[in-house]
C-alpha cells in the first residue's frame, strides 16, 4: 500500500463530511449573536458567504439567529463541523487563530447541544440485503438472490444502510427492472401450453463419463476406486447428458467388481454396492453425497468376472444428471490414510525413508519409488513409526509436504492396478418415458396460487384484479395504500389484458414489474417529521431483521397501536427472539467490528497461513459473543470484558489454545485479564490491521471511532502517513512520536497514537506477541517451503513491543488489560459509543447534537436499570431519535 493510500484508508475509517447545498433564501433571524461569534463570522465567513452570489447558497446576513428554525439548526451544525474540523475557511484563505477557532467551536457546540433536535434521515433506498429479503418475504421466495453482478452499496458513517449514501443510478435501476422481470416470470410464468414426453436414447458408454479425482479410465472401463463422501473425489457422471425435461428415465449400467490376488486390502465377500445419485449439473461439483438425492443402489456380485447388467427407472428433474458411485470400498474417508499407515508399517517405513521431495512426481512414479524402498530394506524400528499421527500433514513423518497426499497417491495407484475397484463397462439412458411434476414446478404452482388467491365465481376481471393488487401493493409498499394507487395498477393490468389479449396472469406480470421498481418499494420512510405507524414498523423491522415487517408487526401498524410503549417493547422482544434477528447480528457486527473486512485481507504466509476456515471461526466468535450478550441481557461492559468466548480448534494457533473436537466451544477465562472481549478478538485485531503489519494510528483511529465514540477527522491533504519499519533500526514509538512533533498533526494524533500503541501486542492476525516480527527475506524455493509448510515460520523475533499508552485525560495504560479495565470502570463512554452506532444503523443517518442528548439519556436510564444490552436496544427503539425521520 502506498503512503497515500494508507492515509486514505485511515480517512475512510473516520467520519466523512458531506456538503449539502442550502437554498439561498434561508436567512438567520431572531436572537442576537454574541460579539465574538459575529466577529468570527464577519472576518472568516462573510467574504464568500454573503450577498446574492453567496457560495454554496449559504448566506450570513444578520447578526441574529433563530433556534426555532429547524433548517437553521441544520445549517449551524454544518458550520460547527467545518469550523471545528478546520475545513473552513479554506486553507488558501487567511486563518483564524487556534484560540478564536476553539472559542467559536465551543460556543456553537454548547448552543447546538441545547437547541438541536434529533432527526434528519435522508430517504433510504433498500440496500442489497434488505432488497433481497424484501423480495423473499413478499413472494415466499426464499431462494431468491440478486446476481453477483448486482452493484454494491456504498458505506458511510460505518454502515451500508445510510440514506444519503444509497444512491440510485441508471444501471442500478436497469438491474432492478431486470430482476423484477425475472421475479414476475417466476411467480407468474408465461403460458407454454402442455408439454409432451418424447423419449430418446442416449448412449453414454463407460468412456462417456466425467472423471473425478479418484476415478480412472482403464481402456474401455471406467474404474471407481474410492468411496469417499463427495462427488469431486469419487463419482463418475455423464459428460453429455442432462435431462431435457423432468420425467422418468430408464437407466442401464453394466458393472463388474475387480479383485485380484495382488490386492493389499482383503478380498471383499459382500457384493460391491453401486449407488446412483441425482446430480444437479454436468459441471464439476463438490457436493457431499449425503446432500444429493439417492436414485437407486445395486449389488454387484463379487464372484463374477464378466459385467452384470442393471436396469432401473429413475426420476430426473429438468437439467439434472446422475452420478455413479461405489458405496462400500475400503478407501472411504479422509481419515483412511491415517488408518492405512497404522496398519501398514512397511508402507509407513518406506515413506519415512524417502528423502526426495515428492512434488513434481507423477502418482505412478511415486508408487514405484515407494515400492523400491520397500524392497530395499526397511528400518522397521524407526521410533517415529510408533508416534501418534497428528495434524494435517502428519508432521512427524519425513517430508513435510503433505504425507497424507502421498498415502492417497500410493493407495490410489495400488487399487487402480490391482483393485479392489468397481468397474463400469457400459451406461445408457432412455427417456423421458413420461413427464413428472418436479419440486420446482410444485413450488412454483404454489407460489402462483398464493399470489393469485382464490378467484370467487361471478366476479368481473376488474374486481378480481383489484383485490389481488390491493393485497399485493400493501405488502410490497409495507403500508396501507390509497384507492387511487390501487386503481392505477388495476388499470394497468386491464389495459395490458385488453390490448394484447393476455391472461389475467400476464397483466399482473406487468403490475409486479412496476411495483418492484416503484419508489414506494425501493425507498423507505420518505415522509417528513415523526414516523407514522407503518414507517415505524419498517424501521423496527429492517433494524432488527434486515427484512420488511411481518404480518404481526404490520397488523399493529394497521391498528395504529405500534407506538404504544408496551407494544413497541413487546414487538422488539419478539423480533429479537425470532430467527431472523441473526441478520442484525451479522450485519451490525460485520460492520461495527469489521469482520466483513476479513475476506479482503490476505495475511502474509510467512506470518500465518490463513484459510477460509480461520475467517469463519473468527467471525463466529464475534457473532456468538454478541448473541449471548443480547440473548441473556448481559451488561454492556460484557463486550469489553466478558470472561468467556466462543472458540473453535482451528484458532488454536492464533490463541495458543489446545481445543479439540469439531464444534465451536464456549470457553471461560478470569475477568480482568487480557483474554476475551472485542479488544482481544482476533477478528477485530485482524480487521484493524492489513495482514502484513500493524499500525498504531489505524487501530487508534478505530478505537476512537468504534469504542470511545470520538471519531477523528481525516488527515489534511498531502500529508504522507508514517511508514512502518520493523527491521529494528527504529522503534514504532519513536516513529509515532516523530509524527506528533508537528503541531497540526499533534492535534489529533496526541489522542490517536498513544491509544493505538496499547494494542500493539496483537499481530496482524490477532495473535498475542511480545516482539515485532522480522520477516526472513526468503525468496524462491526457500519461500516456497515456508509457503507450503503451513507453520508460518517465515519470521523471527525483532524489537520488543512497548505498549504503554496515555489517554487524553492523562490515564496511563500499560497494555490492553489496563485499557479494558478503564473502559469497564468508565462504561458510559463505551455505552454512549455503542448506542450511537446502533442508532446510526437503525435510522440511517449520522447523529446530530439533538440525537446526542437523546443518547445521553438512554445511556443513563439503562445504566440505572442494570445496564443490560437487550434493555439498551429496547430503550433505543423507544427513544425520540428512533421515532423521527
Amino acid at each position: 500500500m502506498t503512503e497515500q493510500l494508507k492515509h486514505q484508508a485511515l480517512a475512510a475509517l473516520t467520519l466523512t463530511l458531506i456538503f449539502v447545498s442550502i437554498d439561498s433564501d434561508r436567512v438567520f433571524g431572531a436572537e442576537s449573536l454574541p460579539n465574538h461569534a459575529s466577529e468570527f463570522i464577519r472576518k472568516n465567513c462573510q467574504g464568500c458567504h454573503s450577498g446574492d452570489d453567496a457560495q454554496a447558497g449559504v448566506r450570513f446576513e444578520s447578526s441574529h439567529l433563530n433556534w426555532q428554525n429547524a433548517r437553521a439548526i441544520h445549517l449551524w451544525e454544518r458550520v460547527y463541523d467545518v469550523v471545528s474540523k478546520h475545513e473552513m475557511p479554506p486553507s488558501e484563505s487567511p486563518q483564524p487563530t487556534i484560540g478564536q477557532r476553539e472559542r467559536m467551536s465551543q460556543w456553537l457546540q454548547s448552543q447546538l447541544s441545547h437547541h438541536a433536535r434529533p432527526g434528519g434521515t435522508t430517504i433510504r433506498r433498500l440496500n442489497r440485503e434488505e432488497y433481497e429479503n424484501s423480495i423473499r418475504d413478499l413472494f415466499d421466495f426464499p431462494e431468491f438472490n440478486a446476481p453477483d453482478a448486482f452493484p454494491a452499496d456504498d458505506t458511510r458513517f460505518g454502515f451500508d444502510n445510510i440514506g444519503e449514501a444509497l444512491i440510485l443510478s441508471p444501471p442500478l435501476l436497469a438491474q432492478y427492472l431486470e430482476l423484477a422481470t425475472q421475479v414476475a416470470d417466476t411467480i407468474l410464468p408465461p403460458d407454454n401450453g402442455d408439454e409432451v414426453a418424447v423419449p430418446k436414447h442416449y448412449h453414454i458408454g463407460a468412456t462417456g463419463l466425467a472423471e473425478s479425482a479418484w476415478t480412472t479410465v482403464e481402456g474401455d472401463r471406467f474404474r471407481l476406486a474410492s468411496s469417499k463422501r463427495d462427488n469431486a473425489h469419487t463419482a463418475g457422471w455423464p459428460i453429455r447428458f442432462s435431462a431435457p425435461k423432468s420425467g422418468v428415465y430408464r437407466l442401464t449400467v453394466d458393472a463388474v467388481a475387480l479383485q485380484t490376488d495382488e490386492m493389499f486390502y482383503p478380498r471383499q465377500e459382500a457384493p460391491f454396492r453401486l449407488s446412483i445419485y441425482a446430480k444437479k449439473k454436468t459441471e464439476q461439483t463438490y457436493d457431499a453425497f449425503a446432500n444429493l438425492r439417492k436414485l437407486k443402489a445395486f449389488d454387484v456380485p463379487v464372484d463374477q468376472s464378466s459385467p452384470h447388467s442393471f436396469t432401473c427407472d429413475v426420476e430426473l428433474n429438468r437439467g439434472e444428471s446422475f452420478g455413479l458411485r461405489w458405496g462400500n470400498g475400503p478407501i472411504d474417508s479422509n481419515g483412511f490414510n491415517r488408518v492405512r499407515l497404522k496398519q501398514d508399517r512397511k508402507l509407513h517405513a518406506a515413506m519415512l525413508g524417502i528423502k526426495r521431495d515428492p512434488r513434481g512426481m507423477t502418482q505412478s512414479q511415486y508408487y514405484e519409488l515407494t515400492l523400491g524402498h520397500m524392497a530395499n530394506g526397511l528400518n522397521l524400528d524407526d521410533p517415529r513409526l510408533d508416534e501418534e499421527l497428528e495434524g494435517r500433514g502428519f508432521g512427524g513423518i519425513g517430508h513435510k509436504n503433505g504425507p497424507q497426499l502421498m498415502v492417497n497417491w500410493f493407495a490410489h495407484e495400488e487399487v487402480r492396478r490391482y483393485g479392489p475397484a468397481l468397474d463400469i463397462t457400459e451406461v445408457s439412458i432412455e427417456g423421458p418415458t413420461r413427464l413428472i411434476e418436479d419440486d420446482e414446478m410444485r413450488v412454483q404452482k404454489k407460489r402462483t396460487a398464493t399470489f393469485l388467491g382464490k378467484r370467487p365465481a361471478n366476479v368481473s376481471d376488474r374486481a378480481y384484479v383489484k383485490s389481488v393488487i390491493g393485497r399485493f401493493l400493501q405488502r410490497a409498499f409495507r403500508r396501507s395504500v390509497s384507492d387511487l394507487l390501487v386503481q392505477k395498477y388495476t388499470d394497468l393490468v386491464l389495459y395490458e389484458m385488453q390490448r394484447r389479449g393476455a391472461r389475467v396472469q400476464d397483466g399482473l406480470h406487468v403490475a409486479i414489474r412496476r411495483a418492484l421498481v416503484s419508489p414506494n418499494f425501493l425507498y423507505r420512510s420518505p415522509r417528513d417529521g415523526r414516523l407514522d405507524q407503518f414507517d415505524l414498523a419498517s424501521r423496527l423491522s429492517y433494524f432488527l431483521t434486515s427484512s420488511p415487517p411481518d404480518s404481526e408487526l404490520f397488523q399493529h401498524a394497521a391498528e395504529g397501536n405500534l407506538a404504544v410503549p408496551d407494544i413497541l417493547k413487546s414487538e422488539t422482544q419478539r423480533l429479537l427472539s425470532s430467527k431472523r434477528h441473526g441478520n442484525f447480528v451479522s450485519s451490525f457486527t460485520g460492520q461495527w467490528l469489521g469482520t466483513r473486512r476479513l475476506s479482503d485481507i490476505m495475511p502474509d504466509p510467512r506470518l500465518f497461513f490463513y484459510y477460509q476456515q480461520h475467517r469463519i471461526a473468527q467471525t463466529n466468535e464475534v457473532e456468538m459473543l454478541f448473541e449471548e450478550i443480547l440473548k441473556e441481557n448481559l451488561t454492556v461492559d460484557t463486550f469489553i470484558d466478558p470472561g468467556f468466548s466462543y472458540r473453535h480448534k482451528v484458532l488454536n494457533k492464533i490463541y495458543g489454545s489446545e481445543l479439540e473436537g469439531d464444534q465451536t466451544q464456549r470457553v471461560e477465562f478470569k475477568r480482568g485479564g487480557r483474554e476475551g472481549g472485542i479488544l482481544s478478538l482476533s477478528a477485530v485485531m485482524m480487521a484493524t490491521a492489513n495482514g502484513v503489519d500493524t499500525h498504531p494510528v489505524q487501530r487508534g483511529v478505530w478505537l476512537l471511532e468504534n469504542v470511545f465514540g470520538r471519531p477523528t477527522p481525516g488527515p489534511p491533504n498531502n500529508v504522507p502517513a508514517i511508514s512502518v519499519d520493523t527491521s529494528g533500526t527504529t522503534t514504532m514509538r519513536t516513529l509515532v512520536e516523530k509524527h506528533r512533533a508537528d503541531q497540526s498533526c499533534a492535534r489529533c494524533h496526541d489522542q490517536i497514537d498513544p491509544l493505538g500503541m496499547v494494542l500493539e501486542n496483537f499481530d496482524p492476525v490477532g495473535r498475542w506477541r511480545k516482539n515485532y516480527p522480522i520477516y526472513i527475506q526468503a525468496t524462491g524455493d526457500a519461500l516456497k517451503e515456508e509457503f507450503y509448510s503451513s507453520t508460518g515460520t517465515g519470521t523471527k523475533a525483532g524489537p520488543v513491543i512497548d505498549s504503554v499508552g496515555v489517554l487524553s485525560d492523562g490515564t496511563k495504560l500499560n497494555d490492553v488489560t489496563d485499557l479494558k479495565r478503564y473502559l469497564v470502570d468508565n462504561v458510559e463512554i463505551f455505552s454512549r459509543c455503542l448506542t450511537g452506532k446502533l442508532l446510526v444503523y437503525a435510522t440511517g443517518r449520522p447523529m446530530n447534537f439533538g440525537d446526542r442528548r437523546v443518547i445521553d439519556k438512554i445511556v443513563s436510564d439503562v445504566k440505572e436499570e442494570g445496564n443490560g444490552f437487550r434493555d439498551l436496544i429496547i430503550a433505543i427503539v423507544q427513544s425520540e431519535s428512533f421515532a423521527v425521520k
Partner: protein
Amino acid sequence: MKQTGDRRAFLKGSSVSLALPMLETFAPSRAKASMQAEESIDRPKRLVCIGVYLGFYQRDFFPATTGHQYEMPPTLRPIAGHRDTMSIFSGLDHRGRNGHEGWRAWISGKATGSVSFDQLVADQLGDQTRYASLQLTCGSPPGDAKLSFTKEGVALPMIGRPSVFYKTLFRSGSDKDRISYLLKTNRSVLDGLIEEAKTLERSVTADDREKLNEYFSSVRDVEKKLQKQLLWVNKPTPRADYTLPEFDPVAPDVALECESIMYDLMALALKTDSTRVLTFLIPGWSQVFTIRDRRLSAGYHSLSHHGNEAAKIADYNLVGMEHVRRLGAFLDKLRTSRDADNNPLMDTTTVLYGSGMGDSNTHDNTNLPTLLLGGGLRHGQHHRIDKQAPTPRRLGDLYLSLLQHFGVREDQFAGATSNMNEYLL
C-alpha cells in the same frame, strides 16, 4: 384465428433474460464516440482479449532472442504462420501481488476489482453493435477466475455454454417475440412510475427531493435505453450456418472441445458484427486430458504446479499447445473472413492473448505471457522489456496504447501513464 395466435406469441416461451440486451445499451452515447465512428467509418475496430487461467510454461512460451529473427518457441509453433501479424512481449506485468488474487487484475491493471480496459473500449464502440461487449468462458470456471469488470468494479458474468452463446447471437423467433413484448410492456411499467414518484415528492423534504431526482433521471435514462433496445430487437438477427453439438461440452474433461466451439462462435460474432468487444477466459480444473490418444500423467491443475519436473512440464506444455492450436484456428478464420462491409477481420481485430498467471508453479504474477495480434498494428517482433530500465514498461502501458488505439482519450490507466506506441505504430 391465426392472427390471435401470433399476437399471443410473446406471452409464451421460456423465461428469457433481458440481461444481455440490457448490457448493450450501457454504453454512453458520447459526442466523441460518434466522432470516432465518423473517423473510422470504413474501418471498424474490434478487440478480443483471451486469458488462459492456468498460464503457460514461460521458458517454452517466450523466444530466446528478441527482434524479428527469433526462433519460434515450442508452445507457439501452432501459430507460427501468423508471425507477421503477431508481437510477443516478455517482461510485462502489473507489479502487483502474487497468488490467485492477481488473476483478477489481468486486464484491469494493478488494482484488483477496478474497471477492465475492454469495458472502456466497449463504452467507446458499443453504440454501433447489438452488444457493446460479450464475455465468454467454458463451463463454470473456478470462483476467482474473473476477467471483465465494470466501472463499478463488478465482475461481469460470463457465458459458459456454447448453446447460450449461440442463442445470444442468433436468437430464435419466439425468444425475440418475448423480448420485444417485455421491452414494450416495460415502457408502460416505467410510464406510471414518474407519476407515482411525483405523488411522493409532494410530501418530502428538500433533501429528499434531490434523492427523488436521482430516481427521475434514472427512470428517464432507462426509458431511453428501452427505445434503443427495441430498435435492435426488431432488426433481424444474422443467420448462421453452424451446427452445435447436441449437448454442451461443459464438463471439465471436454473443455478443449468447448474452447473450439466458443472460438468458432466468436469468429461468427465478429463476422456478423454482433459485437466488437469479446473477452474469453479459458479455465482449468483438475481434469485429466487425453491428448492425441495419450492420457496425460496428471490433472491439468496439478501439471501447472509441475515442480520443475521434466515429465510434468512436457504434459503441461501439451495442454498449452492445445490452447494455442485453437487460437491458431481462430486466427485462421479471422484471416480468411471479412465482415459485411468487406473489411478483413484480421486487420480490424486486435487480439490480446495471454494469462494473468506468470509462473503457475509458484503462483508468481510477474513476466506474464503476452501476445498481441492483428488490428493493423506493427508486428513481427519479440520485445523483451528491460526491467532494469529507470522506468520499466508495464502491462498497463500496453493497455493504455490499446485504449488510445480504440479512440478512448485517456492518458492513464490503472496507474500506468505512458503508452507503448513506439512498439506498435
